[in-house]
């Protein structure tokens, strides 16, 4: 498999395929996500309602869709989503807990986001992707994980993978990449060294 596009958001910087794409003067999640959203000129009011985890995954995916032409080659059920992070949706968990323990009125809109895979639902809704999707919790970013999972996913229905690492703590640490199958052979390898390379490329 080959990686045909990647987006890296680290602290306040955004890189696309290793090149500087956007930089915010503010590395606070809220500010960064709003600035980036405006920069992309995307019109999607649902964005404002998302939790931070979804916002970050959404923005990185929007950038991939805008900059990676290969993505349009695939049918709506051929792209599998494989995402992971280390703290699940703890930020939303806290907000929801606060809504019913302190404000005494549990917020349905916040409860919705107390599952990490809602991020994948948001991506599927936005792009009308019907392929399979999986969210995993890992202790830390692992290129090896994505590479080994790709080997398990691709011989099935999926022909391409959108992989993502979306961590918000201690700093914004987002890495989303699109990998496609480049042959008909069943045993294809997504090289973990290549994943590692793009992940570490934050200069």
């Amino acid at each position: 498999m080959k990686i045909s596009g990647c987006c890296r958001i680290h602290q306040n910087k955004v890189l696309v395929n290793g090149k500087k794409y956007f930089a915010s003067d503010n590395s606070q999640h809220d500010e960064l996500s709003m600035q980036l959203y405006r920069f992309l000129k995307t019109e999607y009011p649902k964005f404002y309602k998302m939790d931070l985890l979804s916002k970050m995954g959404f923005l990185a995916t929007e950038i991939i869709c805008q900059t990676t032409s290969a993505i349009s080659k695939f049918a709506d059920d051929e792209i599998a989503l494989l995402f992971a992070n280390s703290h699940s949706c703890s930020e939303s968990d806290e907000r929801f807990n606060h809504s019913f323990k302190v404000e005494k009125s549990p917020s349905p809109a916040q409860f919705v986001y107390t599952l990490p895979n809602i991020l994948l639902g948001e991506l599927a809704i936005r792009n009308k992707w019907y392929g399979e999707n999986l969210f995993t919790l890992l202790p830390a970013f692992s290129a090896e994980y994505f590479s080994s999972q790709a080997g398990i996913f691709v011989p099935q229905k999926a022909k391409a993978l959108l992989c993502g690492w979306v961590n918000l703590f201690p700093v914004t640490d987002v890495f989303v990449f699109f990998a496609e199958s480049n042959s008909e052979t069943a045993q294809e390898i997504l090289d973990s060294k290549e994943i590692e390379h793009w992940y570490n490329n934050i200069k």
Partner: protein
Amino acid sequence: MDNLKEELKKHLITQLNLEDKTPADIMDEAPLFGDNGLGLDSIDALELIVLLDKHYHIKLTNPEEGKSVFYSINTMAEYIEKNKK
């Protein structure tokens, strides 16, 4: 009534995170739900129930009832006037 409508619009924008909207963008009679209106969905409807309780102490227990109450700013304002405690 007009004050109430204006206030409602502000509440709506904060409670539903309609960050790209101002009160002037929300017409009194326009449908709040569906693609032709403000594009609100079922979760927003639940948030509106929370809003009614929080700001006007009105408890709506049947989400089905919400459909007519939350049709537009006008219908919401009428309902609040009628049921305010």
